[in-house]
């Protein structure tokens, strides 16, 4: 039986179980809970937030096997310039070390279709890899057009090889740019088109699909989102507005637990940021969102949070409790 213990602390704490070079400049990490227990569920296209010891938070698409409930896999490209989170992962992060993750969220879900065209550029292969696997299971008609600078820089070619000519591998130094017109011609009007990769590729695909109905083309952009202040390793204050009480939340303790211990029980259910039951109003302060429920707009609004996993960026939060 899998472990049923609930998370309580800094989102999900994950341990690096393996770290391998999957291609030039691409490190693949396998992450698991320290107790090897079950992780929150995810669907193809989902990403997690990784909070690195450098204080940065980066989003990485999950590219592993969801039928293994106890491991996440991510592929990390060394970002040009050599600074920041990706450099830390490549150069410093070692097997056995721990990182903090925010729960899986999916802005790029795979929707039902008899036919799919997947277009990946470089590290953009990562969210598409589980989609390819799923399209295969569903017995859909599908094709993957996968471009990259050179064969040596393109990750997961070995895993894609068994799919034969359903996958077109287009290293730029051998074959130039991928032939989007031909691929979209194959796709016909009924296919859903999924694209992830660098901005010029996305722009080209968007232009090529401009005449198609809305909802046909689905894209994911890797934007280095500014998360504001770095993740806190220190305690923070939570004020309960209705009772006027103030309490301190220490690292390793969830806001939910701290609030409960102060006598203000808040209903919760999954305790892993997926069901939405413990949503709580935020009257002031800036939450550090680690859940799988709130969308980007709601996060930006900052007026509610899921206190089972989410924490504070600011020194103080005032909650509507």
């Amino acid at each position, binding site marked *: 039986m899998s472990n049923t213990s609930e998370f309580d602390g800094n989102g999900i704490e994950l341990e690096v179980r393996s770290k391998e070079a999957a291609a030039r400049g691409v490190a693949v990490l396998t992450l698991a809970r320290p107790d090897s227990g079950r992780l929150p569920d995810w669907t193809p296209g989902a990403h997690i937030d990784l909070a690195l010891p450098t204080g940065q938070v980066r989003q990485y698409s999950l590219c592993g096997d969801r039928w293994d409930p106890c491991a996440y896999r991510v592929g990390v490209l060394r970002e040009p310039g050599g600074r920041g989170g990706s450099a830390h992962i490549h150069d410093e992060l070692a097997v056995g070390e721990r990182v903090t993750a925010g729960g899986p969220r999916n802005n790029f879900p795979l929707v039902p279709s008899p036919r799919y065209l997947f277009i990946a550029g470089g590290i953009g292969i990562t969210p598409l890899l589980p989609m390819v696997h799923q399209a295969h299971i569903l017995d859909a008609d599908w094709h993957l057009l996968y471009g990259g600078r050179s064969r040596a820089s393109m990750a997961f070619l070995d895993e894609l090889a068994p799919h034969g000519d359903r996958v077109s591998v287009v290293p730029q130094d051998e074959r130039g740019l991928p032939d989007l017109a031909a691929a979209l011609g194959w796709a016909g009007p009924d296919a859903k088109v999924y694209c992830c990769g660098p901005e010029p590729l996305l722009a080209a695909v968007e232009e090529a699909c401009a005449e198609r109905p809305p*909802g046909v083309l689905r894209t994911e952009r890797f934007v280095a989102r500014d998360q504001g202040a770095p993740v806190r390793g220190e305690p923070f204050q939570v004020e309960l507005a209705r009772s006027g009480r103030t309490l301190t939340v220490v690292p390793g303790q969830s806001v939910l637990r701290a609030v409960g211990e102060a006598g203000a029980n808040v209903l919760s259910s999954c305790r892993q940021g997926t069901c939405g*039951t413990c949503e709580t109003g935020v009257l002031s302060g800036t939450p550090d969102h680690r859940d799988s429920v709130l969308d980007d707009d709601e996060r930006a609004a900052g007026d509610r949070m899921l206190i089972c996993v989410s924490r504070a960026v600011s020194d103080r939060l005032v909650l509507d409790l």
Partner: protein
Amino acid sequence: MDTTAVLPTDDTDPFSPSVLEDPAELHARLREAGPVVHLTRHDVYALSRHEHVHAALRDWQRFQSAAGVGLSNFRYEEPWRPPSLLLEADPPHHDAPRAVLSGVLSPRALRSLRGRWFAEAEELVDQVLADDEFDAVPSLAQAFPLRVFPDAVGLPRQGRENLLPYGDHVFNAFGPDNALVARGRPGLGEVSAWINAQCRRETLDSAGFGARIWSAADRGDITHEQAPLLVRSLLTAGVDTTVHGLAAVLYAFATHPRQWDLLRRDPSLARMAFDEAVRWESPVQTFFRTALTEVEIGGTVIPDGKKILMFLGSANRDPRRWSAPDAFDLERDPSGHVGFGMGVHQCVGQHVARLEAEALVTALARRVERLELTGRPRRHLNNTLRGWESLPVRVTRT
């Protein structure tokens, strides 16, 4: 090790009228017997402790739903209706319909309903409290969901009386083909035809949950073939369950006056009270899964393809998880109960149910000083649901 030698067995029929009337004794016996008990009457494997029910609910990789979440095994038997896209499906087929309905019924989608539902609850409570004595099941537990939910879905007024019988039959049909199922069968054709007609786009009001499901199909998030089945899920699982949940919280308060006083002093406990009642009574008592492979639980191996019966009601009263589990107690934290399930199949309408309950309980707390039973309450027997047919009460107004 010879696992079959240690597997406890029990020949009780968990769907017999006497067990449905009061399952506590069976639950206690199963929990004590071991993590897994073979129920010989139906050749199913029972889980009754919180730890194992909770784990099985989350483990969709090994505990299959697509072979049916009732006793019937779709590997060998034809389902009596087209299977649900949610309840009777596994990932990856489950993903897209679930994502759509989760969005339609999300807390953010419900925010605009909150004010209206609180006002409707006040209005209903005012009407009902014209009398000092009434039956709380039809007057409140049924009346309130039937007033607000079909409007929110966008159903026409006519024919709504079909909703309760349809849900009742679907939940009976998860059990064996017993007298309860037979009782629902004669009128089923007509009721089903009405339900299916309500799932069509033309029938649904353009502002409701149903129309939003159809819009999702227009965006391509689900197919147009899936849309009516997803609307059907709302109509199947959205009414009877809430009715029995509300009846549970009303019964709990009518029999626990001190808890009613606590609520009246602090009406913000309404939300917590509903979940505590859901834990305490477990309106959805059971669901089945099917072993997708050989599944090992607590030293016992369940063979591939066998049905697994999860006793949610027993898990919610397991003394290994809850202190004084049989007490209805607003001062406990009921979080983590499995009354709404857990994991990818967790009740997608849980936020709707909680909002309905919060509205009704809050309105009652404002107007009612004392709530007490005036006669013997009568159970409504169902193979899956635990509910009341009748709760005769007397109220003292504030």
